[in-house]
């Protein structure tokens, strides 16, 4: 009870879905406490793309591009999230564009990490095709 009263945001139980892939959403979330996992489903296979921790944010892409959610997000353990809606967010950015710096910084970091992963995959694929040439 005490923790509930003295924590900001909204509470999510372990495993609860914060939003689903392809759903329409106009909010971004900041993790006040706990963790979340970002999941992408292809056919029946679920892949965890990332696990985010306290202080990190997610869901910001839909605020900018207005497209459906690109992945599903689930709470890991008891989690508290602060929700920021698109209209409020854009209003604040239009008043103070430098507010976007931290979001851009995080997004750039994520792009760098993704670039690294793509590079590793390409190298691995090249290795596989080279190996298969050797065997044939």
């Amino acid at each position, binding site marked *: 009870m005490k*923790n509930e*009263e*003295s924590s*900001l945001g909204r509470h999510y139980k372990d495993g609860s879905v914060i939003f689903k892939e392809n759903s329409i959403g106009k909010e971004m979330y900041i993790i006040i406490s706990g963790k979340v996992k970002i999941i992408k489903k292809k056919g029946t296979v679920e892949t965890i793309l990332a696990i985010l921790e306290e*202080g990190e944010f997610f869901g910001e892409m839909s605020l900018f591009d207005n497209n459906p959610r690109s992945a599903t997000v689930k709470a890991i353990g008891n989690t508290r999230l602060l929700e920021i809606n698109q209209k409020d967010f854009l209003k604040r950015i239009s008043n*103070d564009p*430098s*507010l976007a710096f931290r979001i851009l910084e995080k997004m750039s970091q994520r792009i760098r990490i993704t670039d690294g992963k793509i590079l590793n995959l390409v190298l691995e694929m090249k290795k596989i095709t080279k190996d298969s040439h050797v065997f044939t």
Partner: protein
Amino acid sequence: MNKLKKNSNLELKDGARIAVLGGGPAGSFFSIFALKLANQIGKDIDLTIYEQKSFLNEGPSSCNMCAGVVSESLVQLLAIEGIILRPPILQRAIDTYCFQTISGDVLLHSISNQSGIATVYRGGGPVCKSTSEKNEKPDSGKISFDDFLIDCAKKEGANVENIRVDKVKLNNEKPEIFSKGEKLFDADLVVGACGINANAVKMFEKLGIGYTSPSVIKAFQSEIHIGERNVSTLFGNAIHIFLINQPDVKFSAITPKGSYVTISMLGKNITKQTVVDFLNNPLVKNKFPDSWRTPDAFCRCVPMINVGAARHPFANRIVMIGDASSARLYKDGIGSAYLTAKAAANTAILYGVSRAAFYKHYYPTCKKINRDNFFGKLMFTLTNTINKTPIIREALLTVLRSEQKQPESDHKCSTVLWDMFTGNERYTDIFIRAFNPRLLLRFLINIFNVIFIWFKNMWRQ
């Protein structure tokens, strides 16, 4: 104009020294944003915050005396910036405002359906008067919001000196700052984040830069201990606004914290007796435990509140921010400290520290706040009039109650009141929404309804 142009190339070079006078929210926010931005563009600056108080002790002398409500918009802005409020700094997360009037009360729940407003202590908490109070002090140490922000500034690389700056001199090219007769250094930039409760603003007025400090009025704050469980059961996560027409009192509110509630009052000549009278008002008394008696002694202070803008809050190598410059009328002063501090930090790092740079890139933020306060004054006058006119007050409560009963419909009137008292939106936007023709029509119909019911009751009698 020529003078403006002549000094427009004052830029902060590598190794530039900045003196921030005051480690309240404005001083810390400035330091955080200036250092972050400088780091981002690879500029090496040396920034020192001078703060005369230690925020670790109890009572007013270690506190920047305010109700400690961090608005929903500021909570979100800070979270985006990576500054997240958690216990023990966060005393309670608020999701409801409760308006108590002599004609009944009405609860307004957060529009965003979450606990989005924070309550904090600015210093080390209230002075403990009894052992029961001491037993309920959080044992986790630091609880001060201001101290937490200073720590955030330190993490960005700010130096902090626990001393009082007592003189700023402008004889040379760079302002010189002094403490106890000893020169501290020649500053490339002096940031006046000294608030309005210290004499430091007078020091800046005497510099001859045209700076005039903002007009202020006195406010009254008291911290009443009722125990953590009582705070939870009787006040919950709701800030209580009392519209009870107490003589000479313009505004009174109770903000729940850990084991205390903070009473904030605005008005003419408020004394300890006014607070005791307030606590003895049946509507207020009703909120406290049956066995509870007003204590003889409680932690209290009489701080100043900013009600008008400063004039010329900048010069070459000098900029005034936070309360010492412009603040939103009666609401979200910490939010204004954030806005002015960030605008000044961005200007200093990206555009330089000349008067012209501050005029072009910093002053618009102050002017925006000042212009908005004009509508704030109108809105507060309107609320006071409504509160003092029983028929209109009754009609307003009816509109609010009917809106709260329909969770899915748009809550035009509730959101106007919510944004007005939470400080969540600009007064200009609230003003425009308050004069929405549909809302006015509904209001008018309800006024006629109330008059009709009154006449009907009189007729029956």
